């Protein structure tokens, strides 16, 4: 299942901040039901896009070890609707990283105008839940590549962000590749 609610990273500073763009298109099926004749980007999917921006940032920061999930949205304010043809810029900034999770402030802008602001709490799954494979590591690698994270990203020391070696094995061992 394809569940991309961001289209590309434009900034990716490991452990600190990431920016991604989301282009809203009439080719997205759900817009024709939300609402018929009056397409509006659902705020819940804006939150999902903000969570993906922040969640991937946290996932990379843990050297792709922590299974990061969206746990809670304490604050979500939407100042106006986002509609087809808009390009939203999502900015996720890490407020606090903890062994069990993290807090991120994430905003959505249309150009210079603030469209939405949220606070998102992520949890790191551990114990029994942590052992389950949430997704194929190869899918994760492809998602980060497709979103161009490794083209714009920087590691903590400022050097270019490199693809993780732990996921290389998954790619090379896949007979379909």
């Amino acid at each position: 299942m394809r569940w991309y609610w961001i289209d590309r990273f434009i900034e990716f500073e490991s452990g600190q901040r990431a920016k991604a763009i989301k282009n809203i298109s009439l080719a997205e099926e759900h817009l024709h039901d939300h609402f018929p004749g009056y397409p509006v980007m659902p705020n819940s999917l804006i939150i999902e896009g903000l969570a993906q921006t922040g969640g991937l940032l946290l996932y990379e920061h843990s050297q792709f070890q922590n299974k990061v999930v969206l746990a809670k949205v304490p604050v979500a304010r939407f100042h106006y609707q986002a509609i087809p043809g808009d390009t939203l810029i999502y900015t996720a900034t890490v407020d606090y990283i903890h062994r069990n999770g993290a807090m991120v402030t994430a905003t959505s802008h249309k150009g210079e105008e603030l469209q939405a602001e949220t606070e998102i709490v992520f949890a790191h799954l551990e114990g029994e839940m942590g052992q389950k494979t949430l997704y194929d590591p190869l899918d994760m690698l492809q998602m980060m590549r497709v979103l161009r994270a490794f083209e714009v990203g920087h590691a903590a020391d400022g050097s270019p962000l490199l693809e993780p070696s732990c996921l290389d094995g998954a790619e090379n061992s896949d007979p379909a590749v």
Partner: protein
Amino acid sequence: MPTKEEILENIRTALVDALGVDDDEVTPEATLVGDLGAESIDFLDIVFRLEKAFEIKIPRGELFPEDVLTNAEYVQDGKVTEAGMAELRKRMPFANLDSFAENPAVQDFGNLLTVADMCRFIETKVEVTG
């Protein structure tokens, strides 16, 4: 080095931000679960805010010893045993467990923690002035 008043103020801010309650609802006697509506996921949020506000670390189970409540040694038929109560008292010197001890049903434990308990907990982790 915060005063007791400052500790309460910082805890109040953390609970208002995490739980969406009003300032005046966060009284020392208010219980986190019963009066302020905290759910399990909120405790993760609250711990993060407290750690950040006071620059401390709160290891898992230190504020809320969930491992005692799920341990067969300490819980029987949904009630905390004497050994369990002793362990809880040892782990939570900041909380008043007397009324809970009268009927120590595990399902009621969540409603034990008050804002005042949290203040006392923080006081054990930071140097308090005044």
